[in-house]
């Protein structure tokens, strides 16, 4: 099939959704994006297309690029999560077509948001692409809602950089129980193959995030560009593929 496949939810209780760009002998066209029940959000000059050359060996990948506007967005949306208190997600990303990032560049790759606003925020986690001190080597940084009493936003940068080309990124986001600071975020960058959960690349624990309930909307693609990204990297494509999300078990590969 050429369409953007929904994986069979063999783990019906534990699984949420899996989206891969399967492709076929036919073109990698817009129908590949149809599996995302929230559709594509190509806003203010942003573009979302299916292109040949899947990141996991399949025929197609998703290509996202932003325009010059600060409000530009190029993503696909999954509205199937039901206020998930625990939300695991994984995706492949290849930013190698983006020219060298400078210190003022950043762009969002993925976001999970709550259904309602708490303390002026809906976002549970926002994962972004950022530069490192070494030109051409990128990293990820993520901000997440937290009850710090002031901004209600905390931030963390991965101690492990991305590799050139395709990177596999998996997160496990757990919301705190009401009145407790027992939420956590664990993540794996390019974890070794296998279905058994390895030690995470890094983690943040002790998060008080119960006010944001759980994930209701997931967005994969580009958004929230920094001003310099908009001026220097507009039109440059980042490739995505093989999105998967679950409630409980490690996704792996």
């Amino acid at each position, binding site marked *: 099939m050429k369409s953007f496949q929904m994986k069979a939810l063999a783990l019906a209780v534990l699984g949420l959704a899996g989206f891969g760009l399967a492709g076929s002998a036919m073109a990698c066209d817009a129908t590949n994006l149809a599996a995302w029940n929230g559709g594509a959000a190509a806003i203010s000059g942003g573009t979302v297309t299916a292109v040949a050359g899947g990141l996991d060996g399949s025929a197609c990948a998703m290509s996202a690029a932003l325009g*010059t*506007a*600060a409000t530009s967005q190029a993503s696909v949306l999954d509205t199937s999560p039901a206020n998930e208190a625990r939300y695991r997600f994984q995706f492949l990303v290849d930013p190698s077509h983006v020219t060298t990032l400078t*210190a*003022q560049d*950043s*762009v*969002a790759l993925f976001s999970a948001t709550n259904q309602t606003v708490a303390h*002026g925020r809906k*976002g549970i986690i*926002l994962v*972004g*692409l*950022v*530069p*490192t*001190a070494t030109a051409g080597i990128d990293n990820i*940084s*993520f*901000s997440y809602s937290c009850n710090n009493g*002031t*901004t209600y*936003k*905390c*931030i*963390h*940068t991965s101690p492990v950089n991305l590799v050139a080309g395709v990177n596999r990124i998996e997160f496990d986001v757990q919301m705190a129980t009401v009145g407790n600071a027992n939420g956590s975020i664990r993540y794996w960058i390019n974890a070794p193959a296998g279905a058994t959960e390895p030690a995470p690349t890094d983690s943040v624990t002790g998060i008080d995030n119960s006010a944001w309930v759980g994930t209701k909307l997931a967005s994969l693609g580009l958004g*929230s*560009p*920094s*001003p*310099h990204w908009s001026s220097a990297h507009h039109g440059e494509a980042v490739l995505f593929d093989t999105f998967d999300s679950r409630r409980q078990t490690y996704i792996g590969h």
Partner: protein
Amino acid sequence: MKNVAMLLLACSCASAMGSVYAAGGTCAAPVALSPLNAAGSASGNTCTDGSGGGATANQVASYCGIQDLSNQPQEVYSVTLAAAGSAGRTATSLSISSTTAAFSATMYLFPGTTAADCANGGPPCGQTGDKTSAIDLTATDVAVATAGTYYLVIGANQVEAKAATACGDYNLTWNNALPVKLQGFSVH
């Protein structure tokens, strides 16, 4: 033979005079700048302007939702800008320099009216500039084009943010480019 004479009484040269400000403040108590309709400057040192002569405190932990600035000393100014291109905004660029080695003094200019807006660091993200790139205040298609109140946060960049040396001196300058006005015109 035609003779065209034009009398230009005003020029677009930048004024060398203007307001001079000292070190910036905090998100809770920023130092207010003039509306950038006259040339001026501001200077400070994020390594030494803090309590007891030490480094200033971090004010904006994250910029634009993703950039991690959580470990760097910062100073904060506020400024009310007229719309880009209007008579109330005669400054065309905002520049920053520093003599501190290994410190990329960076400006983060973004809209906001409350201390919480400041500490949140956007989005909306506004504009940024550093020692090599000034903030263009003339463009009408950028996030700082509209009239309003903005915070101007001075610190290091996100790459340096985790380094112990991510502080230093800085000098902000903005110009006053008076528009060219045709005051007289005759054809002979």
